[in-house]
């Protein structure tokens, strides 16, 4: 079942179009919403929460239309906003319990659950402190705790690692990963930090100027068309490269003793061909792997202005190497 289904969604703020005929489907699991600042990520989240009325199109969460369902749909959703947000004058435990009550929990359950969630988010010792005295890292954690308190089925995290030091960032990513994997909570992480997305998400949706640029698993996004191989040799061997080219392979120049080789046929057959060529030219092979580009390269390709929307861009093996 898809967690989020968006179809031809257009959202405008006055004359500015924040989302333009945006369509995508997000399955269960942890999905990253990637895009540069101002791409429309936060607008998409706010539209899914019903904060913004779309001009046209539909959006569904867990099968419920976000416009028709009204506020009741938010009972299934937790939001960790990008900006700091808390209720002034409250301790962490009363704030999180209050957030639970607002979501519909009975007050006794909300208090019990608030303690539990704060403990999980690493704020157990600081739960009786006023939230306004918290550090940036603690404020990020309490935002996560208030989003989790009512046991949402879908969690929207908007730039969850903003303002965190490296250690805090790692801890936050660990927390997100522990929630999103095997706990039945579907997570949509909006971020422009590619390493964070790669660390916690299984899939990505790339947004640019309010349009969908690419969607799929991270492996799919990083894959290079034609499944080329990166062949690491002991030292550059021109005879080896020439031999491969004679049998129809496309071979890039060596980079750190690695040739990028694209051959016809499947990966197994390509392995055999490369080994045969190496044996014939006395080249020493140190390693094979299916070549892939970095998520950063994949993202930059996806958000190139010339690229048409909705197409997962996958360059050929020669791209950027030959």
């Amino acid at each position, binding site marked *: 079942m898809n967690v989020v289904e968006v179809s031809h969604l257009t959202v*405008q*703020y*006055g*004359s*500015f179009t924040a989302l333009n005929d945006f369509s995508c489907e997000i399955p269960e699991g942890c999905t990253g919403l990637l895009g540069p600042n101002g791409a429309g990520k936060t607008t998409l989240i*706010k539209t899914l*929460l019903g*904060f*913004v009325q779309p001009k046209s199109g539909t959006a569904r969460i867990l099968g419920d239309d976000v416009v028709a369902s*009204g*506020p*009741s*749909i*938010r*009972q299934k*959703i*937790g*939001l960790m*906003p990008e*900006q*700091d*947000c*808390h*209720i*002034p*004058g409250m301790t962490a435990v009363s704030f999180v319990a*209050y*957030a639970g*009550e*607002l*979501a*519909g*929990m*009975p007050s006794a*359950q909300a208090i019990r*659950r608030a303690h*539990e969630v704060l*403990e*999980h988010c*690493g704020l*157990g*010792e600081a739960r009786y402190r006023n939230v*306004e005295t918290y550090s940036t890292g603690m404020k990020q954690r309490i935002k996560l705790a*208030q*989003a*989790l*308190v*009512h*046991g949402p089925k879908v969690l929207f995290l908007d730039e969850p690692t903003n303002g965190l030091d490296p250690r805090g960032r790692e801890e936050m990513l660990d927390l997100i990963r*522990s*929630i999103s994997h095997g*706990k*039945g*909570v579907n997570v949509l992480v909006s971020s422009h930090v590619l390493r964070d997305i790669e660390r916690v998400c299984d899939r990505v949706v790339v947004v640019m100027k309010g349009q969908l640029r690419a969607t799929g698993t991270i492996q799919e996004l990083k894959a290079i068309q034609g499944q080329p191989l990166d062949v690491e040799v002991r030292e550059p061997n021109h005879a080896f490269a020439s031999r491969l080219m004679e049998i129809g392979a496309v071979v890039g120049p060596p980079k750190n003793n690695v040739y990028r080789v694209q051959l016809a046929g499947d990966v197994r057959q390509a392995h055999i061909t490369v080994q045969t060529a190496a044996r014939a030219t006395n080249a020493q092979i140190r390693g094979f792997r299916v070549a892939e580009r970095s998520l950063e390269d994949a993202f930059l390709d996806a958000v190139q202005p010339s690229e048409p929307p909705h197409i997962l861009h996958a360059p050929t093996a020669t791209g950027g190497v030959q």
Partner: protein
Amino acid sequence: MASPIADVSYRDYDGPLFAARYRWWVIAKQGILLASKKRNLQVLSFVSAWYYLAMIIVLFFVNQGGSGGNSEAGNRIMEGIMKNVVWKDQFLHGFSFAQLPLLLVTLVLGAGAIANDNRSRALLVYLSRPCTKLDYLIGKFVGIFVPIFVILAVPTVLFYGYCALSFNQYGFLRDAPWLLPQMLVVILMSAAFHAALVLAVSAMFDQGRVAGATYAAMYFITNFFTVAMSITWATSDGKAPEPVKHLFYGSIDGLQIGFCKAILDTRGSRPFVGGQRGAEANLPVPAPPLLAISLILLVIIAGSAFLTWRRIRAVEVVG
């Protein structure tokens, strides 16, 4: 960090969740709970009831002294004093003298109600839950309205009870049989007026202190206007033009005092001793027309609620 013995693995919540109704009550309840914990509010509650407390002390000693030994002379003295007391005017005074402390109560309760939420972007917490803008608005309103109502109503009811039990033979219940319901209507209107107005001011700012200063400025500037009209009235020997009488009520507390006078159908008298003597200019300004002042109050309440509604936004709209 987590306690070493704690089980910190994440567990899903599988307990009950109430339907998305009556969320406003959760917000209101929180407002009332926070108010009940404020020490300065408890002190101000006592201060706002000072006239009733003073009257209870005065009446107690008068009663003790006048009826000492249940002598006939004592009873005559008591009747002489009580003859001058206009009971409904005592409630008007109690309400009027509570206005300044009530301003402070309102500031403590309401100045930061929305302004502080704006500052800390708490709206995202509220509106990402099954809460609507209306729930938020009603919850915040009730969270201010109920404490103000209680702070005004409790001393009024206590004073009424004391007078009904002790001075019924001097015509307390006979002279103004509808006094308690009338006073409760006045208090309801006053609490609604203060709550709506302070919320509107609070919604305009993102600093509770700035909102509070603005509300206080509104109170004192309009109050200065009231004083000016009062002096005009007093120096005119009762011949001031007709509008002056009504402009006297052109302030935050003036509107409420005017409404109280109109409901109780009295122009008031001197505090404590009562009685109305002297020339027209020395008498309090007459009560305004009930319908007109009620309409003005209701329009201000509705207008304030509309302004607040317009200012509550989950997202910043650009373009």
